[in-house]
């Protein structure tokens, strides 16, 4: 007899600030030792569901609860956040922001400190747990000195010290590069086996989570559970796509080719995925009919030559980088966290000055241009829109740069309105920005740069923290701009984004360019992906299964994706 550890029964929750309930009539049972993946769009209620488990709801975010939510047989609303934290350990999305200690040991010890655990016992326990997540040798390190993946390990250790039965991960992959994300999923899996805990992962990057076995997928949409089933069953239906969740690449490639996916093909992992001879032929024929490559303008717009830069004169963050961006290109700069890609973008817009080397725009050396002068030619959109928005209303925010430049009011009005129309914000032009969603805010920041009519727009992680639907929305918008001739540079570690939308890319490893060329060639090359902390796509394995050159197969997939997108418009 399996033991139920979490049980929602006719459970609904409405935030005080909202009119409609965010969770509606949830019925869900999770057994002890199970591993459950909760998927859904942003705003679907999946994070709210997680917060109901750890007690942030109703103790921190107040609202009306109807029905019941029991953990180990007790109603959560009769406990407190602190009591619940003994059963449910939560690892939040932002592993940097949740690092509350001044060094690793202290952060892991935080829960023990609050429990008044004696110092010698605490030290011993911290050391043990740190060793369990491979951080035993880093106890003295400050958060500034360790990587994103290591911070996540620390966060995990910080909840494991409480000896919890349930581990809750809220979008654990959001801030990690692909290879680190893969390691994180493997680590979660190992820990679950060692500690025999129940694991709940809230994430929309389905394929990455399915890298290790998952017992059940729960799909949430508009506050309701649409479906709960084994991964094999879920992937055999079309329900994910319908609700804006991206399927694993190999599954969508097979579906593109018209192959019918059934549970007995074991589609939950590329390693178990079985295709019949007919299916393979069908995919091969499909792929071969989609192989052409788009040609673009060959005029060089921006050129970096032998760029060198260091923050402290010791370590060269940029160590001799040369590259060219063509006019009208969608260009990607990729590499692991800390490889130097953001620094490179800062050099391009003049936020930092290169120690050596030259940057040419249209063949002109722009060394002597100020940040503002460069800003008119090369606009940059920061990752966090809250770091850019400084006006209350949408119109003013978009008009801001033009006003500073002393453009006449009439022209401002005309240009802002035109830009707002392109960005799909025209209807909302008189809205306060605070009423917008994160994705909409992002569009406002893009509009506020676009209105300056720069020759190039640089976007730092344009889709970070966005679910597939919003990701598609932003990227299709950028693609439209690009088709109208806008040159776009993107800094990203999202491999799908690069693969599907970019014409060319450079891969930076330790301040040098390791690879330059077509996106389809990067992710099928093990040497490059290993070096740059990227991850080979499952398309590579699928290509091998059907006996086609992975490079070509990936390109076919990209082309098919694109034409499908265009057909939709």
């Amino acid at each position, binding site marked *: 007899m399996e033991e139920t550890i979490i049980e929602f029964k006719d459970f609904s929750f409405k935030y005080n600030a909202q009119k409609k309930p965010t969770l509606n009539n949830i019925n869900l049972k999770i057994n002890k030792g199970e591993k459950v993946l909760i998927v859904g769009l942003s705003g679907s209620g999946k994070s709210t569901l997680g917060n109901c488990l750890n007690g942030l709801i109703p103790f921190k975010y107040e609202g009306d609860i109807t029905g019941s939510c029991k953990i180990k047989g007790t109603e959560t609303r009769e406990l407190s956040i602190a009591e619940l934290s003994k059963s449910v350990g939560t690892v939040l999305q932002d592993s940097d922001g949740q690092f*509350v200690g*001044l060094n690793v040991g202290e952060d892991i010890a935080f829960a023990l400190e609050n429990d008044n655990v004696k110092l010698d016992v605490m030290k011993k326990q911290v050391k043990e747990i740190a060793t369990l997540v491979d951080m035993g040798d880093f106890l003295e390190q400050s958060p500034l000195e360790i990587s994103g993946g290591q911070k996540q390990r620390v966060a995990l250790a910080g909840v494991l010290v409480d000896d919890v039965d349930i581990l809750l991960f809220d979008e654990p992959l959001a801030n990690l590069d692909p290879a680190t994300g893969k390691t994180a999923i493997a680590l979660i899996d190992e820990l679950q086996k060692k500690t025999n805990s129940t694991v709940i992962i809230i994430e929309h990057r389905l394929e990455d989570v399915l890298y290790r076995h998952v017992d059940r997928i729960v799909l949430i949409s508009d506050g309701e559970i649409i479906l709960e089933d084994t991964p094999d069953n879920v992937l055999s239906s079309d329900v994910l796509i319908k609700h804006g969740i991206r399927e694993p690449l190999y599954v969508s490639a097979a579906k593109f080719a018209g192959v019918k996916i059934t549970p007995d093909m074991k589609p939950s992992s590329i390693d178990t995925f079985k295709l019949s001879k007919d299916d393979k032929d069908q995919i091969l024929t499909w792929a071969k009919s989609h192989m052409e490559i788009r040609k673009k303008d060959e005029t060089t717009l921006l050129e970096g030559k032998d760029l060198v830069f260091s923050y402290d004169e010791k370590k060269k963050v940029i160590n001799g980088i040369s590259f060219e961006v063509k006019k009208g290109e969608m260009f990607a700069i990729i590499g692991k966290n800390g490889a130097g890609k953001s620094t490179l973008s800062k050099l391009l817009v003049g936020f930092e000055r290169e120690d050596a080397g030259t940057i040419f725009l249209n063949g002109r050396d722009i060394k002597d241009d100020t940040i503002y002068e460069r800003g008119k030619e090369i606009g940059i959109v920061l990752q966090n829109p809250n770091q850019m928005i400084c006006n209350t209303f949408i119109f003013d925010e978009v008009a801001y740069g033009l006003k500073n430049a002393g453009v006449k009011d009439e022209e401002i009005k005309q240009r802002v309105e035109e830009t707002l129309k392109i960005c799909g914000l025209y209807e909302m032009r008189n809205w306060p920005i605070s009423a917008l969603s994160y994705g909409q805010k992002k569009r406002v920041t893009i509009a506020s740069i676009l209105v300056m009519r720069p020759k190039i727009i640089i976007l730092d992680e344009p889709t970070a923290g966005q679910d597939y639907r919003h990701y598609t929305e932003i990227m299709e918008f950028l693609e439209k701009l690009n088709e109208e001739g806008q040159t776009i540079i993107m800094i990203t570690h999202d491999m799908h984004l690069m693969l599907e939308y970019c014409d060319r890319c450079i891969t930076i490893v330790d301040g040098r360019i390791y690879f330059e060329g077509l996106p389809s060639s990067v992710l099928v090359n093990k040497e490059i992906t290993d070096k740059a902390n990227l991850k080979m796509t499952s398309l590579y394995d699928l290509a091998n299964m059907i006996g086609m050159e992975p490079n070509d197969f990936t390109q076919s997939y990209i082309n098919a994706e694109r034409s499908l997108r265009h057909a939709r418009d």
Partner: protein
Amino acid sequence: MREIKVFSYVDKGTIIHKLSGVSKVLCFLILTFASMFTYDLRVLLVLTMISLIISYLAKFPFGRYKAFLLYFAIFALVNSILNFLLAPTYGVEIFGSAHVIYRFNDFYVLTQEELYYQLCKIIKFLSIIPIGMLLFYSIHPSELASSLNGIKVPYKACTVFALALRYFPDIQKDYNNINLAQQARGIDSSKKASLSKRIKNTSKILIPLVFSTLDRVELISNAMELRGYGKAKSRTWYSYRPLQKRDYLAILFCTLVFMAVLFMRFAVVKNLFWNPFI
């Protein structure tokens, strides 16, 4: 962005660094009190010597704090001049004699007594400043927080203090990013713009800074509550170092210094000041 170290804690492994945070805070307080109880130049000089010897033992890098020391020197000088301007004969009143050096007019008379009084005051500052700076230099912020809690400062105040130090670099980074992005959109908050414009422009940076900081605060407070922060009346500290023999010795030493000062003050000189003019 170049990294700036706000809290310059560096573990140099000296005997001073090895002392527990509690004993460091206590020693600092005792020595400060000692210095507050006397205006005896001889005693103050001894205290200053002790203070400098401790700094030397801790390998305190005076060179790195040049700006601060200069600021202090200017402050002390201005303070003395203002004192003289407001009450030029205060020294005479204290010591009951007047050895005139120079007579500006009937009100402003420069006397040896006044100079001696000001000298005492500066030396008094000097006896405290090095160990004060040393405290911040030789104690890990978390340990300081735990030590403050050890001397009965409420633990929530102590964590706020430690967290401020933890997140300061992050917020500074935010500020830099925002500032640069603003410049790219035509806002000049550099020295080239006029002062009124710069103030106005800086306020434009504050809006995004406040919003991104509020996001951060919400996240941190969630993270802390989810790990049981604030549920009990007390908490223990990972960074706390229990007292050892050397800590007791250090506290004993400082207490003896304090007693010696009191002895000089109440049994020997029997006055706040030591009067060299009689």
